[in-house]
C-alpha cells in the first residue's frame, strides 16, 4: 500500500516535470517572441525591434531554452530575481514568475484566487454527489419502471445542454427573471473568514448550477454502475442469506458500484480545482478560472503558464487520491 502510494507519487512528479517542460517549450517556440506581449504592453503597442530585443535580453529569452528552464525550476525551489526592462522584481520560492500585467509574483495571486475556486468546487461536488448518487441508486432499484425511465430521459436531456448555456440560464432565471432572494448576492466572493453567511450566499447560485448539472451526470453513472452490480451473483447470494433489502442494496450493491463512480469523480474534481472557467465567468466569481481567462486575453504568459501547471498538478493529485480510495474500496487492488 505504502509502496504503491510512493510509486504513484514518483510517477506524478515525473508527469508534472514533463508537463512543465511542455508548457515552457510551447511558449518559447510560440508564433511570436515570448517577450512580444510585455513589450507591447509596456510600450503602448509601439514595440520596436530594438525594444523587443531589450525585453528579450532582460527576460533571458535570448539564452538557450534549457538554461532558462533550469532557472525556472531553480526559482520554484529557492526563488529568484526577475528583471523586466530595467526593474528588478523579487520572486520568493516557490516562484512561478512575475505577472506581466500586475508585476506581482504569480504565486501570491494564485494563492489569493484559490479560496474562491475551491469553494465552488467543493460545494458543487458535494451537492452533486449528495443528490446524484442516492437518486442513481433509487433509479437502479426501480429500473425499467416509468419513474426510472422518465428520470433517466429528463436527466439525459439536461446533461446534453452545454454547461455554459445551462449555467447562464440558471443565473438568468433565478436572479434576473424571478429575483429569488437567496441568489441575489451572487457574484461577490467573500472568503469564509469574513462571515459564513456572506460566503454562502455569494457561492450559492454557482453551487446550484454546478450541483444540478453534475447531479444529472452522477445519477446516470451511479444508476449504470448500480444496475450492473445488482445483477451480480453476490447480490443473489446476499438475498439468499436472508439479508434485508437495505443491506443488500447499500452494503453489497453500492459498495461495488462506487468504484467506477469514484474513478470518474477523481477526474471531474481535478478539473474543477483547475478552475471552473464557465462557472466563474458566468457568476462573476474571481477564482483561478477567471484569472486564467484574463491572463489569456491579456497575454500574461507567466500566469497562463502557472494556471496550466496548477491544473496539471490538481488533476494528478486528485487521481492519486482516487487510486488510494479505489484500493480502500476494492481489496483486490490493495492486496495484489
Amino acid at each position, binding site marked *: 500500500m505504502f509502496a504503491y502510494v510512493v510509486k504513484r507519487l514518483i510517477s506524478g512528479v515525473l508527469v508534472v516535470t514533463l508537463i512543465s517542460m511542455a508548457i515552457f517549450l510551447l511558449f518559447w517556440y510560440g508564433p511570436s517572441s515570448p517577450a512580444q506581449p510585455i513589450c507591447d504592453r509596456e510600450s503602448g503597442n509601439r514595440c520596436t525591434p530594438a525594444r523587443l530585443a531589450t525585453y528579450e535580453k532582460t527576460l533571458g529569452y535570448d539564452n538557450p531554452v534549457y538554461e532558462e528552464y533550469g532557472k525556472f525550476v531553480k526559482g520554484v525551489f529557492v526563488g529568484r530575481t526577475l528583471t523586466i526592462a530595467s526593474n528588478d522584481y523579487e520572486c520568493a520560492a516557490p516562484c512561478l514568475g512575475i505577472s506581466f500585467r500586475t508585476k506581482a509574483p504569480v504565486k501570491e495571486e494564485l494563492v489569493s484566487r484559490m479560496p474562491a475556486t475551491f469553494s465552488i468546487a467543493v460545494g458543487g461536488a458535494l451537492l452533486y454527489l449528495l443528490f446524484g448518487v442516492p437518486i442513481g441508486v433509487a433509479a437502479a432499484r426501480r429500473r425499467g419502471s416509468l419513474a426510472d425511465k422518465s428520470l433517466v430521459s429528463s436527466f*439525459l436531456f439536461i446533461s446534453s445542454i452545454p454547461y455554459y448555456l445551462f449555467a447562464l440560464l440558471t443565473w438568468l432565471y433565478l436572479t434576473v427573471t424571478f429575483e429569488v432572494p437567496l441568489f441575489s448576492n451572487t457574484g461577490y466572493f467573500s472568503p469564509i473568514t469574513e462571515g459564513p453567511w456572506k460566503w454562502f450566499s455569494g457561492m450559492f447560485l454557482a453551487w446550484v448550477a454546478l450541483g444540478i448539472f453534475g447531479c444529472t451526470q452522477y445519477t446516470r453513472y451511479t*444508476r449504470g454502475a448500480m*444496475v450492473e452490480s445488482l445483477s451480480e451473483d453476490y447480490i443473489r447470494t446476499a438475498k439468499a442469506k436472508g439479508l434485508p433489502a437495505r443491506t443488500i442494496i447499500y452494503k453489497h450493491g453500492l459498495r461495488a458500484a462506487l468504484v467506477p463512480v469514484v474513478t470518474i469523480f477523481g477526474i471531474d474534481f481535478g478539473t474543477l480545482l483547475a478552475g471552473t472557467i464557465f462557472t466563474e465567468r458566468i457568476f462573476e466569481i474571481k477564482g483561478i478560472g477567471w484569472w486564467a481567462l484574463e491572463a489569456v486575453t491579456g497575454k500574461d504568459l507567466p500566469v497562463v503558464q502557472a494556471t496550466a501547471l496548477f491544473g496539471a498538478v490538481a488533476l494528478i493529485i486528485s487521481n492519486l487520491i482516487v487510486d488510494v480510495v479505489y484500493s480502500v474500496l476494492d481489496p483486490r487492488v490493495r492486496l*495484489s
Partner: protein
Amino acid sequence: MTQDPNARSEIEPTEVGANAAETGERELHDDHDVTADHEVLHEGLDFATVAGMGHVASELDPDAPPVLTIDNLKMYFPVKSAGVVRRTIGHVQAVDGISFEVPKGGSLGLVGESGCGKSTTGRLITRLYKPTGGSMMFDGHDLAKLSSREMKPLRRDVQMIFQDPYTSLNPRHTVGTIVGAPLEVHNIVPKNQVLKRVQELLEVVGLNPEHYNRYPNEFSGGQRQRIGIARALTLNPKVLVADEPVSALDVSIQAQVVNLLQDIQNEFDVAFLFIAHDLAIVRHFCPEIAVMYLGKIVEIGDRETIYGRPHHPYTQALLSAVPDVKQAAIGGRRERIRLEGDVPSPINPPSGCRFRTRCQFAQEICAKVEPPLLQIGSRHKVACHFAGELGAHPATPVTTDLLGVDDQGTPVPGATPTNTQLTIPGYEKTWYDLTTKQTAGA
C-alpha cells in the same frame, strides 16, 4: 466537469431479476430462428440414422509418423515484485520440460487440473507464447525458435480451437468474414472464390451454408463452436490444438461437437492436440493421453494403459475422482483416492517429485530426486519412484539402480547410474521392465 455523456456507457435495464440463472434463457431467445432451421433439419430422423452418425472411440495407429515433436519444452513466466521498482523475483514454471509426439492424423490428449500447464502448452504450440526453452519440430522447422515473421507461413498448418464460443468470435463480423479472413490474410484463393470456400466449410461443420452473412450472436453456443472449428479448418491445417473445445457447451451439444471433430479428423487427416479436463471425453477422442501435473508430464501412454492400468498415483487419483454414471446401478459411492489440499504454487514447486506433497506413497527419495519419465511398456511412460498398478505399488523405489542412489535417494558412492534411457519425445523399442528391473523389448 467531464461533459462527455458517454464517459460511462449506460446499462440497459433487464426485464427480469437479471440473475445468472436466467442467462440461459436469454441465450435461447437469441437463437430462436436458427433453432427453427434445426427443427426442420432434424425432424423425421430416426434413431438408427442418428446412431450411425455417432462415433465409437478413436483408434490408435501405432505406425503413424509424428507430425509434431515436442522436446523438453519450457515456459517460465516472470513474477514481478510489488513496490516501487518491479524486479523479477521468481518464475511461474508453467511448463517445465515436457516431451511428446503428436502422430500424423492422430490425437494426443492432454489432461490435468487447472494450473497444470496444459493450456499453456497449447498456446506454445500455436506460438501465442514464445517458449523459454526446448524445441517443437514441425515439418522440419523448430517452431520454438522461429521469429514471428518466419512463423507466419507455418501458422496456417497449426490452428487452434478455443474454449469459449461466446468470446472467441468477433461479434461485429459476419460468419463469412470470420471464416474467410484467414484465406485473405494468407492470400490463398482468389477473392471471388472466398465465398465458395466459406460455404464449403460451413457445410463441413454442419451449418447452413446460406448463413454466411449472419452474425455470431444469431447462433447458439454449439453452432458458434462449429463456426470456430470452420475458421480453424479454413487453411487445411495439419495440426489442430483444441483447448477445452466442448466444456462450455450443454451436454447434448458436446456429443455433436465431439462427433464433428472425429468426422473432420477422419476426412482431412488432421492431428489433434486435445486439451481437456473431462477425462471421459478425452478417453473417447484420444487413443493416447498425457497426464500433466504442475508443469510436467507425469504419465503418458495409450488409452488402455492410462485408463486401465495407470501406474502413477496422480493418474490413479484423478481417475478415481471422476463420477461414474454406472455407479447408480450398484448404489452408493465408490471408494476413491482422496487428494488432500490444493496444488502447490508453480512459482516454488516442491523439490524432487512435484506430486510428493499430496502423494500417499511419498518417501524420502521423492523429495531428493526427481523421478525420470521412464518408459515401462511399449507405449507407456511414467515418472514415479514407486510406479505400479493401483494396490500394487512397490515398497522400495524402482528407480534406484537407474539413478545410482539408495532407497533414501542418497547417491551411492561409486555407483554409476545405469539409466541409459534418454527421455525422447516418442517411444523406444526397448523399455525398463518394472518387475525384472531389466531392459525388455518387443
